[in-house]
């Protein structure tokens, strides 16, 4: 390779008091390439990119841009050098239009109106040439997350970025939006002038989109590989330093009586549109029912309705045979229901509470945690220490605020609280979202352990692989209806994909019974 690489980061060291976030990391990005930066949460990916973008100053090493050593002291300098970054959390002003957002902060040469007209045209040009469809006059607040991300990309390109850093860009997107983003990414690098650094911890995406991949682990670069010459198993091993179980071995299910039974349920979403539309399903003791589907097809509303956070409009929900349709979360406490919510920071945790305060969220009313209305701190602390140990929560102690933990450890806190009550029914919504491989595997193992214990599990996930691994039966949801219930060994991912797209499977009624129908009435209640 005689060609000078676009970017070389050599022996980058970045330490924070007490931590080495980047330990002599090397990264080389070529012109026209999509370079994936792969690693678990906390492996040092974001730190490295923040060094490149001028947000952090490295303690050692150097950065070469097209062969020339550069010092980048601020994002402004990075932008001047043609480096653009799209952060995980967008930096947009919702009430302003796309055009206003793009030119915000840029010095205007002439009057505002003139600048706007000109900017509008250039935005349109950029949008057309890379397939970044946006309406330049739409207020950003009205756009979907996927389109907002396009605005961020346009913002970077408008400022002359040729090296684009995308920090976990797919985390917030639906599968269709992810495909759209990938198309845009390919067009961006097509002419060989630009390059993209794609930060991710999702193996499928890295395999699908990148030309080369650099794996980080514990702040060190462990390998840089041609994507075509590697595979997911190798990448996963490099990432976590151990073999990851992609096929989890599990004993055959021994389904017992029905624990959760849903009949013709209708639930409206926040915009008052029916999101769950006449849905029926049942989950039995000792089985995992996987609920597959594209995000936004009513999964959230269904989970919230079962957990008592959203009152259904019609239909019934029965737990252990009792009608709980109109009960709220407080009433449901006595049904020993575990709910792992989709948004753990918003609902699953109180971030400003300590771990021990979070652990007792559903139990504080009872001894030993409280006696006659007074909290018993020694018992609470003791309980918290036990859970921290049992669920391997990486935290300095029970009196640390939940806010201070990493995403994976926050999820462990939620799991610890929900699963330690030995629930009869578990509703798990996107439990592995945003987690790295190790933490996701932990979640899956916990679900299997609960199944073995005899819990009924409704496992909602966007990740097909996970659904296949865990489920005893798979129900597919599309626009709030069940498209069919199938067994994982009797269906291909392609067939499942068709069902997720809304094509009902023949001969698979919504209430198909598990392998050995127990003495119940499979058709549900009359």
């Amino acid at each position, binding site marked *: 390779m005689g060609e000078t690489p676009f970017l070389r980061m050599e022996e980058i060291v970045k330490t924070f008091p007490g931590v080495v976030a980047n330990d002599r990391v090397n990264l080389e990005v070529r012109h026209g390439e999509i370079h994936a930066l792969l690693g678990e949460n906390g492996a040092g990916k974001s730190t490295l990119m923040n060094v490149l973008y001028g947000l952090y100053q490295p303690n050692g090493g150097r950065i070469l841009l097209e062969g020339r050593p550069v010092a980048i002291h601020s994002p402004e300098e990075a932008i001047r050098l043609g480096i653009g970054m799209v952060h995980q959390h967008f930096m947009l002003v919702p009430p302003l239009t796309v055009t206003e957002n793009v030119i915000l902060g840029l010095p205007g040469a002439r009057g505002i109106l003139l600048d706007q007209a000109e900017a509008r045209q250039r935005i349109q040009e950029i949008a057309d040439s890379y397939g970044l469809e946006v309406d330049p006059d739409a207020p950003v607040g009205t756009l979907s997350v996927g389109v907002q991300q396009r605005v961020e990309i346009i913002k970077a390109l408008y400022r002359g970025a040729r090296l684009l850093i995308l920090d976990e860009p797919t985390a917030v997107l639906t599968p269709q939006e992810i495909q759209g983003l990938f198309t845009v990414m390919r067009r961006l690098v097509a002419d060989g002038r630009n390059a993209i650094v794609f930060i991710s911890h999702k193996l499928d995406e890295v395999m699908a989109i990148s030309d080369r991949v650099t794996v980080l682990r514990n702040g060190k670069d462990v390998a840089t590989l041609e994507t075509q010459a590697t595979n997911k198993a190798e990448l996963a091993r490099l990432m976590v330093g151990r073999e990851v179980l992609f096929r989890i071995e599990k004993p055959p299910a021994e389904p017992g009586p029905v624990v959760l039974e849903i009949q013709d349920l209708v639930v409206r979403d926040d915009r008052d549109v029916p999101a769950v539309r006449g849905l029926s399903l049942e989950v039995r003791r000792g089985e995992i029912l996987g609920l597959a589907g594209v995000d936004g097809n009513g999964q959230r509303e269904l989970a919230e309705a079962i957990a008592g956070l959203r009152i259904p409009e019609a239909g019934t929900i029965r737990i252990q045979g009792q009608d709980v349709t109109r009960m*709220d979360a407080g009433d449901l406490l006595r049904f020993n229901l575990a709910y792992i919510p989709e948004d753990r920071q918003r609902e699953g945790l109180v971030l400003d509470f300590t771990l021990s305060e979070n652990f007792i*969220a559903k139990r504080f009313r009872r001894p030993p945690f409280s006696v006659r209305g007074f909290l018993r701190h020694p018992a609470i602390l003791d309980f918290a220490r036990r859970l921290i140990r049992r669920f391997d929560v990486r935290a300095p102690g029970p009196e640390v605020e939940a806010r201070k933990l990493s995403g994976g450890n926050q999820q462990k806190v939620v799991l610890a609280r929900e699963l330690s009550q030995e629930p009869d029914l578990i509703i798990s919504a996107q439990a592995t979202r945003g987690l790295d491989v190790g933490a996701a595997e932990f979640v899956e193992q916990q679900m299997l352990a609960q199944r073995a214990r005899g819990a009924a599990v409704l496992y909602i996930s966007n990740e097909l692989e996970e659904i296949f691994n865990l489920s005893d039966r798979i129900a597919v949801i599309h626009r709030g209806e069940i498209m069919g219930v199938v067994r994982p060994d009797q269906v291909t991912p392609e067939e499942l994909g068709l069902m997720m797209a809304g094509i009902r499977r023949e001969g698979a009624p919504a209430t198909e019974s598990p392998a050995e129908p127990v003495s119940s009435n499979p058709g549900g209640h009359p």
Partner: protein
Amino acid sequence: MTTVTQARESQASRALRWERLINMLLPVLAILASFLIGSLFLWALGVSPVTAYTALVKGAFGNQRLATSTILKSIPLIFAGLAVTLAYRGGVFNIGAEGQLYLGALFAVWAGTRLALPFPWHLLVALALGILGGMIWGAIPGYLKATRDMNEIIVTILMNYIAIFTVSYFVHGPLKEEGWNTQTDAVAETARLPTLWAGTRLHYGVILALICLVLVYVVLFHTTLGYRIRMVGANIHGARYAGIKTTWIMALAMALSGGLAGLAGTVELLGVQYRLIDNFSPGWGFDAIAVALVGRLNPIGVLIAALFFGALRNGANSMQTAVRVDVVVIYILQGLAIVFLIAGSSVDNRIRRWLDAWQA
């Protein structure tokens, strides 16, 4: 293994202790900084800051009489500061402490002037009615927020006017004493808070304030009710998820807050003023917001902040006569202290982040 965890825990608890220390020190530093900047103002006015501050401190604590007066001025601020703290912890911003304390005083003055009961009972009834008056005035916006999602800030502000003018109506009309003065009769001896030590004006309201302070602390941090209140304030979605009746808790926090504010007016009435007049309060209900914030929503902090504001108000007059600057300088000092406190919180966050990184 265990020793490692133990070591990590002890390190963590050391960091926690640091954090608490910083938390305690911040208001003190903010106050010092406000005096420092305030001295620039004084200097610009051609006044020696040293002379001015000396007069201020002497005016606030110079002798027993002045120190007593400082404490007396702090008492309503303690009650009202606790009121704002309790509501704020529950996620409700109570701007209505002023109205609540007026209504509390109104109920108490009625009991004190229109009922005839023997000593401890008359006092207790007057206190209870004072609490009730504040509670009603707090519960209304709490209920409206909880069930109708009406903004409590607007409702409480507007209800302040209703309360203040309602008191005015009673002072000019039904409860007005015979004669020329627009004031109520003085409450009966049997309904007054007795003095703590003969020869001073210090009354039993001080004890009551300290009891309330401990009560608020215990309720917030050692009861399931306080746990619910704090959870609703910290994350209402998380609280709903945990099965807490959030609307009910918000309304309750507001009612309790109103009760405390009602006590602020009641204790002032039964311990110091004895008669209700127009503009009975110099704005304790609003100063209480500053007291709660400077006290960092912590009962002990509220005590310190209330004493500080009480001292400022009390020392102001002495400073005015000693160096002939207007009392408004005191308001400038108050304002600066709040600005520095807020600025301090952001520095505090930075220190915290640094501590976190150091721990990791």
